[in-house]
């Protein structure tokens, strides 16, 4: 694959409720060691967790920016309560284009000033992307379940409008969000009285079928895939199709190594097959999937390197 200096590697917002110490240490290492261009921060899943994040957010932002990384602040996916509306409105008030909107409430609050469209916003097609661009979107992250062919058309439309266009290439897929907290429910608690039990599952709470087959992960109100999406073999195709940004989602593995593997492929320093071996080592036992990209069941792993 040709050397690619244009494509940006990003780190999506942390979906889990990690302790403050763990989060600080994680982002310190990301800032200093990970070959990433852009980092999304902010609580996207649960408004109850937000106060924990906010305390050390300024220090984390400062550290990342000092290391030359662009920081984007992401908004909540589900907005129902007053505090969630306020959090969304406060974010939309910020005087920076680098905010990512994940709920239509944010579009209302932002009122056509520049912003990014997050993966929860259902940008499935050209008309939607075109309309979003007309309302101030500078960048759009496509839905994870969009097949590669549609992705190429969407990316081309976005590029034609001067938008950045991004897709998740690594990590658990977000499959559903709900008003209800399943983490709390599994522990016999309500959402209001959850005691932040989600902090115990740094990579999500595993669910197995009654045949002991791992299938999903619960993360508060979010349901995630058991598999990690891995589009490393498809990276060349994605870039040829016009994707400008590739998103890695933070998981409980060595994310510096994960970023380095993807970067080495973008740089043409390693071929995807060799890089895949390194990624496998970094991720241990977890299964990889790329079914969504190939228009099949999302959990599937279609084993082939897509020719460029």
């Amino acid at each position, binding site marked *: 694959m040709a050397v690619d200096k244009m494509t940006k590697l990003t780190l999506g917002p942390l979906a889990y409720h990690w302790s403050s110490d763990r989060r600080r240490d994680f982002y310190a290492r990301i800032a200093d060691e990970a070959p990433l261009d852009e980092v999304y921060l902010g609580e996207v899943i649960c408004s109850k967790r937000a106060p924990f994040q906010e305390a050390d957010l300024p220090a984390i932002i400062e550290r990342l920016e000092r290391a030359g990384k662009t920081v984007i602040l992401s908004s909540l996916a*589900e*907005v*129902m309560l007053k505090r*969630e*509306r306020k959090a*969304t*409105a406060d974010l939309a008030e910020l005087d920076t284009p680098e905010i990512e909107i994940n*709920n*239509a*409430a944010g*579009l*209302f609050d932002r009122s056509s000033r520049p912003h990014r469209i997050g993966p*929860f916003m*259902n940008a*499935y*097609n*050209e*008309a*939607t992307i075109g*309309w979003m661009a007309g309302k101030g979107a500078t960048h759009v992250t496509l839905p*994870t*379940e*969009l*097949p590669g*062919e*549609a*992705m190429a*058309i969407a990316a081309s*439309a976005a590029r034609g409008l001067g938008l950045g266009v991004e897709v998740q290439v690594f990590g658990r*897929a*977000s*499959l*559903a969000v*709900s*008003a*209800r907290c*399943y983490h709390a*429910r*599994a522990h016999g608690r*309500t*959402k*209001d009285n959850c005691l932040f039990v989600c902090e115990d599952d740094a990579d999500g*709470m595993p*669910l*197995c*079928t*009654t045949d*002991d*087959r791992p*299938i*999903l992960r*619960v993360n508060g109100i979010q*349901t995630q*895939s058991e598999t990690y999406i891995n589009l490393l073999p498809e990276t060349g195709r994605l870039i040829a199709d016009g994707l400008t940004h590739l998103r890695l989602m933070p998981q409980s593995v060595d994310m510096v190594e994960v970023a380095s593997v993807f970067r080495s492929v973008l740089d043409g320093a390693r071929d995807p097959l060799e890089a895949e071996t390194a990624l496998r080592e970094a991720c241990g036992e977890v299964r990889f999937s790329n*079914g969504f990209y190939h*228009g099949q*069941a*999302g*959990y*599937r792993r279609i084993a082939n390197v897509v020719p460029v």
Partner: protein
Amino acid sequence: MMELVCPAGTPAALRAAVEAGAHSVYCGFSDETNARNFPGLNFSTEELTEAVAGAHKRGAKVLVALNTFPRAGGEKLWHQRLADAEAAGADAVILADVGLLDYAATHHPRLRRHLSVQAAAANPDAINFYAETFDVKRVVLPRVLTVQEIAEINKEIDAETEVFVFGGLCVMAEGRCSLSSYATGKSPNMNGVCSPASHVAYAEEGNELAARLGGFTINRTPKDRPAPYPTLCKGCFTSENQTGHVFEDPVSLDARHLIPALAKAGVTALKIEGRQRSRAYVAEVVRTFRAAVEAVEEGRPMPEGALARLAEGQAGTAGAYAKTWR
């Protein structure tokens, strides 16, 4: 009187709903432009034209659901269906995709627009955004709000609200769920399909019947008991050595007794789920609910009546309206 919005998966069900007292009937075309794209269900353009004429004769309205999200490269079909709905005389279209809302507002300005539950607009800001931007007249609210929250929302918006009162209960935010897509490759958002029968298999194993979706075991029931249809959100899973319904116990929504409270909260229309249900089912549910809204209108007590046996053989629940979730 509160408007009763009833499901129709076939022309026969539509006629049955109107005869049973539906003020409005909602339906879709036989393709992936709507969220109940099941084999053997829904309407051709000819059938829709006839159905609309028949409904109008009896003073009922027809609302056409075009509430999936067109994939890039595939928008033409949805555009065609908007034109078909308008030509058939539909009273409104029910939309979720922003690009399609924009297209409809531009190319079919006189066709009334409702916001589908698939748009997941669960707060006044999101609703006002859709209402102001695309002149949406009515919003179908997600099934996650309490009656009190619905009342608060109605104070802050100009659009009418429509809420589900009976039938199957989606536990995830609609329009934001890829669970079916993950297990089967068929997506509610893109294909209008959730947990399709083509990917379901049942197998007798010992004294149990295992129900599988896309090869994943979703439920096991004793052979002599009715087996629930395997969908991921209502499945039985193991976590931390406990096995159970992690997301939701299989219950059906029945909010009949909340109709007076919903009326007070400013709700315009009550929606019954079940376009995949039989004509007889639709007729019975519609009759029962029509009697209920008439009673509420006239200040009479709610008529008692048993719908429990229709509720998927499951217990009825007032769902999120009664706030037991938080």
